[in-house]
């Protein structure tokens, strides 16, 4: 699970302007902490699809799966190991 987590954090630092000093816990809400909005979320999905060569089904894009580092990492691993 470490690999997607690091890639997601790197993406958020470059594309999402996640401050270097911000410490994100695995279960922090990315939308409520102001790290992402709907457009960044779509960019993140696009990034994960090309990075991990996966297709993320639209019905999977829910707050449970995509609003936390843990949820996104788990979703990516599930799809990757399909």
């Amino acid at each position, binding site marked *: 699970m470490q690999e997607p987590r690091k890639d997601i954090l790197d993406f958020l630092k470059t594309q999402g*302007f996640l401050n270097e000093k911000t410490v994100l816990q695995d279960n922090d809400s990315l939308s409520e902490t102001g*790290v992402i909005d709907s457009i960044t979320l779509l960019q993140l999905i696009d990034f994960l699809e090309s990075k991990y060569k996966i297709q993320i089904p*639209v019905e999977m894009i829910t707050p449970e799966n995509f609003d936390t580092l843990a949820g996104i990492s788990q979703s990516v691993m599930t799809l990757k190991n399909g």
Partner: protein
Amino acid sequence: MAKAAHYCKKCVLDSTTPGISISADTGLCQFCEKFTPLSPEKKEEYHARMDALLKSPKKQGKYDVIFALSGGVDSSYTLYRLKKEYPRLRILAVQFDNGFISETALQNAQNFCDLTKSTYLRLALDQSALRDTFSKAANSRDAYPGTAKYRASDICNTCISIIKQKIIELALTTKAPYIVFAFSPGQTDAPFVTLTKPFLVWMRKIFEGNLKAMGVTDRDAYLIDAQCIQPGSPEPEVTIIHPFLVWDYDKPAFKKECIRLGWIDPDLKDHNSSNCLLNAFAIKNHLDKYHIHSYAYDLAALVRQGNMKREDAQEKLHVDVTDASIDEVQRKLNL
């Protein structure tokens, strides 16, 4: 002493903007360093998908497309080209009246609806409440996340979020399968967005949180009607399309085409908007609060993609703080 600005040697971002770093090795900002242009194959794939969607849309309701029409040059051209390429489309063009739309933009919108035989809808909400909401946006700090702050001013984020919420609501209630926004390739990366109920519930919740953070108490009027997305309501069958991620974005060429078709260039001093009188004030307000020009990120992306000349983007980033519209807006917003 103020820090010296280091400009990205490719786009228009500079090191004095919070969050932007310029590499000492490459001279590029973090976005230009990671930028990969869209391949011709990918663009062709997008085109084929847009054709497949729009050539023979499912006839679910009275309209095939709910179109966000500002009356500015981008949306006027998109409406015209959409109808030219897909003549069978039944389009409801929605112009959101935020109380600051120029008379010329109102006229342009109606003229282009006549030209394209689209149905025109002027969407007006309570003007006094809207002014109060824009005033709260102007006085707010950090109501929107860092990412949104780079994409638009707090005032424009509020306005465009209301438009998105109400346009989605219209698509759901009229059973229109498509929504079209004329966002530039600097404003979005995704040519197609399929809407699902959980995603809409989530987006509604996020915008409600932004409004709450600004101190807006009467929020329901700005949000998707909760009944449309409550448990048990039909699953949305709506896709958002951004045609400018499929077509070439050659603004001088399509502006010329629009003028040929009767589009009137408004007499606004603001370089970044051809329809909204709020815009110049919104830019200044954002610069004062965050030291971020709310168009810098979009314009930088257009330059990076080769869709705009660097010097043209630099000119657009010039802020005329003496613009008379700024005083007028401040007065109207009681600021």
